[in-house]
């Protein structure tokens, strides 16, 4: 996902063109495609007044429209708190409708963005920017890479992205907790999946929203990962008081198994690729190495493993291939 550095000032991307078309689409395209692309979002109550909107355990495709992420919303006394906003404007609109249907008449008081990956924040457009909050580093990352992510999402999922533009949160979080609409939320500023990963705990229900620091039965993604830092963050999370974890991708986790599985997978990934790089295997040979049986049932593990080889191999080679005297 390093396409952002190829954008040049003054060039029109496919995304810009589609955005322009979005404004005029109703006039000319008629009703044929009007209802074709629709996210079928459903809310699953995972704790009192707390709903998960589960995405599919897949990679981005033209069929799923980028709906591969777990988004959540919580009814608090005076309104609603949302954790992550999904992959597109269209998703954000569907999410708002679902919230209105589930918790009628209550205003959205806070939207958290756990980190800057596109499936977690590209629905921001439909919310009042002043209620969208994230750590300053997440905001900086969105400002730096959001455009490139949005372009790449148009390439990967196509027309689902129509009208989507990256919007950075209007509020930089500070402090280890905040009260929103009569409910206290604890905030944990961690990293490792990206350079800034926000973990949120609803102190009333004990639901811990781990963002993408924890995956469960869906393979972890590593485009911005620092594995050792990530492992430290998982240890931090495992020590936190909680009732259950909603991972960024995959199933809800009542036992802490998502932390163990993510840590186990990352450990294998790091060790295996280190050995491969140290023995001079090509990236393609490393990609062909077998995934252990205990990870075979994890969704999209082959795809994500191969992506991780590309993310991690250059750095491992630089660390593990010895320098040679050159004349």
């Amino acid at each position: 996902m390093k396409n952002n550095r190829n954008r040049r000032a003054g060039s029109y991307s496919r995304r810009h063109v589609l955005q322009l078309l979005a404004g005029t689409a109703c006039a000319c395209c008629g009703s044929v495609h009007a209802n074709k692309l629709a996210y079928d979002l459903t809310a699953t109550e995972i704790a009192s007044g707390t709903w998960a909107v589960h995405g599919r355990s897949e990679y981005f495709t033209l069929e799923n429209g980028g709906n591969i992420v777990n988004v959540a919303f919580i009814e608090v006394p005076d309104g609603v708190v949302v954790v992550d906003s999904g992959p597109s404007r269209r998703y954000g609109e569907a999410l708002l409708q679902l919230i209105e249907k589930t918790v009628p008449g209550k205003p959205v008081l806070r939207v958290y963005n756990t980190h800057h990956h596109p499936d977690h924040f590209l629905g921001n457009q439909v919310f009042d920017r002043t209620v969208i909050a994230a750590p300053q580093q997440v905001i900086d990352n969105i400002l730096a890479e959001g455009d490139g992510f949005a372009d790449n999402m148009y390439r990967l999922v196509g027309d689902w992205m129509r009208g989507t533009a990256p919007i950075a949160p209007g509020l930089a979080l500070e402090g280890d907790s905040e009260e929103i609409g009569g409910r206290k939320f604890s905030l944990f500023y961690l990293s490792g999946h990206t350079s800034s990963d926000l973990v949120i705990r609803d102190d009333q229900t004990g639901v811990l929203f781990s963002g993408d620091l924890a995956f469960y039965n869906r393979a972890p993604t590593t485009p911005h990962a620092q594995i050792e830092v990530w492992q430290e963050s998982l240890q931090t999370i495992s020590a936190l008081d909680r009732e259950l974890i909603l991972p960024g991708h995959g199933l809800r986790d009542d036992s802490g198994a998502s932390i163990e599985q993510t840590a186990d997978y990352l450990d294998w990934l790091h060790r295996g690729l280190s050995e491969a790089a140290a023995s001079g295997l090509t990236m393609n040979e490393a990609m062909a190495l077998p995934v252990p049986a205990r990870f075979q049932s994890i969704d999209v593990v082959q795809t994500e493993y191969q992506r991780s080889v590309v993310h991690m191999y250059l750095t491992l080679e630089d660390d593990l291939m010895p320098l040679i005297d050159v004349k």
Partner: protein
Amino acid sequence: MINRTIKRIIAAAALVIISQVSTAGASSLPQDPLNSVMWENLAGRFFPGEIVIDQRVRVSAPHDAEDQMQVPITIDATDLDNVVEIVAIADLNPIPHILTLHPTRAQAFIGFRVKLEQASPIRVGVKTSDGVWHVNGVIVNAAGGGCTAPALAHGLDNWYKTLGQTRAITRRETADAARLSLRMRHPMDTGLAPGIPVFYLNTIEVTSPNGDELAKIEMFEPVSENPTLTLKPLVNDNISELLVYARDTEANEFRFSLPVSDTIDN
């Protein structure tokens, strides 16, 4: 103005004639399994002579390029005997020719990384000593811009100081073949990024201590920044060292030697 129009018409007519000639001459070409629009043109240019589509030429590449600046490719033609030349091209790159390997005394194997300007077939021709080209390939889906973006090195003030800095691993993989993986720091500028002239490593030679050529690579603009290459030179009992010579388009020269262990290290 009229002159220009006439010139354009003549040019267009010439193009039509040329394309018809190449179509006529290509009638003996095997059908391209990758259905590339460039097949007839590139086959004539890079694989002159008899061509067979041959699954024994194994080309490994990811279906989707995660990073279009560093798309990993591994070519393994060790099921073919008497290989004299391996040519790798990216059909739809503005500069298609990636590299040519002469495995003089090496297995018909090479790993490298390539910049892709857009989704493209990666096509490999392996020439055997009877003059036949054994051709195979894969299609890699990619985002745009790999060849026209500046190298990451140009974001550094001091990239020139580390030019040619090399990391390498060698080990005896079988009784008579070594695995050599190396990375040389070089921006590999294509000349297509605005304001940055063409500048790339174009020659790498691997020889034995007594001067016998084991492998030679001619490299071109599409090879990724900081070329990372994997070769399998043949090393009999007497060879305990590989000598490497590299040169770029500005005639900078780099020489280094790499030890090969006596025992198999697998």
